[in-house]
């Protein structure tokens, strides 16, 4: 191997070791029996169900609103566009707990709706709101890049072939950008499944209602450290499988 390639390989090895060893440690400290035991626990199962439900609903909301948003930002030039992009990115750098407080201050009983808005705080709906808030920027960012990478002439071709803007969006832009949209969706779903701080602040932690897996893990730290690690391992495995399968689906998009 030439020296430069060796250098690159060293960097990759260092990065991989550093990023993988801690994740591996979770599994190393979890006996298979712990895993099974943690899944046998009713409150763990409740948390898993709730996590999957709320994350998937949040993902649906994000995709529904975020996709046209990203398309608009990617394909039109207008005043304030780059301000809008920066604003959408801001939640990315918010500490999750601050995000939770921000949600509480704005959508809580003392927020813009006063006491008359939808009941979000400490409800399952609130979990969805918190997950949506912290995960949406991941999807929108990626979706915007994917739409921007679609050759604009494909969309123009669609127009000259008699398709209006809406049909062009559905039948050309979305299928062509599909791989990127899937990747963005996976990232957002992964972030939602791991969300802790904002959920706790905004929605609290109540078994079966607002206690998602990360909150359940946290609650177990004090009393059931092994159980907490086992539940973490389950979460990592689910998230990893998710990332990998989406990557596969994306690769098949054009096969």
């Amino acid at each position: 191997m030439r020296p430069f390639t060796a250098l690159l390989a060293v960097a990759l090895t260092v990065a991989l070791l550093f990023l993988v060893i801690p994740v591996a440690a979770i599994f190393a400290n979890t006996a298979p029996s712990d895993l099974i035991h943690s899944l046998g626990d009713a409150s763990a199962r409740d948390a898993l169900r709730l996590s999957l439900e709320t994350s998937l609903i949040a993902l649906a909301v994000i995709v529904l609103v975020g996709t046209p948003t990203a398309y608009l930002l990617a394909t039109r030039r207008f005043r304030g566009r780059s301000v809008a992009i920066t604003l959408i990115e801001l939640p990315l750098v918010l500490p999750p707990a601050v995000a939770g407080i921000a949600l509480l201050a704005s959508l809580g009983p003392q927020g813009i709706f006063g006491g008359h808005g939808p009941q979000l705080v400490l409800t399952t709906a609130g979990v969805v709101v918190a997950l949506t808030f912290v995960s949406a920027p991941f999807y929108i960012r990626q979706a915007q890049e994917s739409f921007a990478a679609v050759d604009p002439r494909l969309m123009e071709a669609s127009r000259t072939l008699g398709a209006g803007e809406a049909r062009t969006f559905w039948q050309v832009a979305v299928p062509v950008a599909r791989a990127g949209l899937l990747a963005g969706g996976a990232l957002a779903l992964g972030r939602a499944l791991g969300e802790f701080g904002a959920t706790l602040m905004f929605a609290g932690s109540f078994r079966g209602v607002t206690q998602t897996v990360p909150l359940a893990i946290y609650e177990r730290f004090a009393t059931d450290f092994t159980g907490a690690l086992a539940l973490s391992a389950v979460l990592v495995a689910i998230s990893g499988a998710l990332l990998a399968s989406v990557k596969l689906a994306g690769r098949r998009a054009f096969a």
Partner: protein
Amino acid sequence: GANDAHLTVSAAASLKQAFTAYQANDRYSFAGSDQLAAQIRAGARPDVFAAANTKLPDDLYAAGLVEKPKVFATNRLVMAVQPDSKIDALGDLGRPGVKIAMGSPDVPVGSYTRQVLGGLGPKLREAIMGNVRSNEPDVAGVVGKVTQGAVDAGFVYITDVRAANGRLKAVELPPPLEPQVAYAAAVVKGTKHPEAARRFVDGLPGASALSDAGFGRP
């Protein structure tokens, strides 16, 4: 010398104001007691561990991670409500529509709270438990929910209400139900400053900084 050594102290969040006044030069990490205990179990080695109960230090002692714990202060569990709240008795918490936050059963404040509720009649107890909307992993979460109006009331320590500077009002619990809230501290095994650490723990009971913050003597 050893006297000047800066200690690293992991302490319950509710001790923040008292401890910073007690020995300003030491390094404190304030968080939920259970979180700090989990850290020590996972290998973290502060010099001193001060918890909002006696159970966590006792468990660590049993696990051989800390020296024998010492009870150094008492606190009082109270109901925290907003200053303009109409709730002024434990019984009000059973009314329909009242929202309550409490610590989760695994954290000290949560187990004290459940102890209190255990002393009530089953009807009121179930009504109150039915109004619980969140089991917070630490006191800060309960305080945050009440100050923000997310819930109508929460169970916290009197010291937390005092620290909230008027944003919260304390409603005292009926004395017979009031739990024994004892804080225990222990020197963590393997500390590099065992002398200073022991001095720190030994000096705690009766320190004026603690009583100023509203803690009782053991």
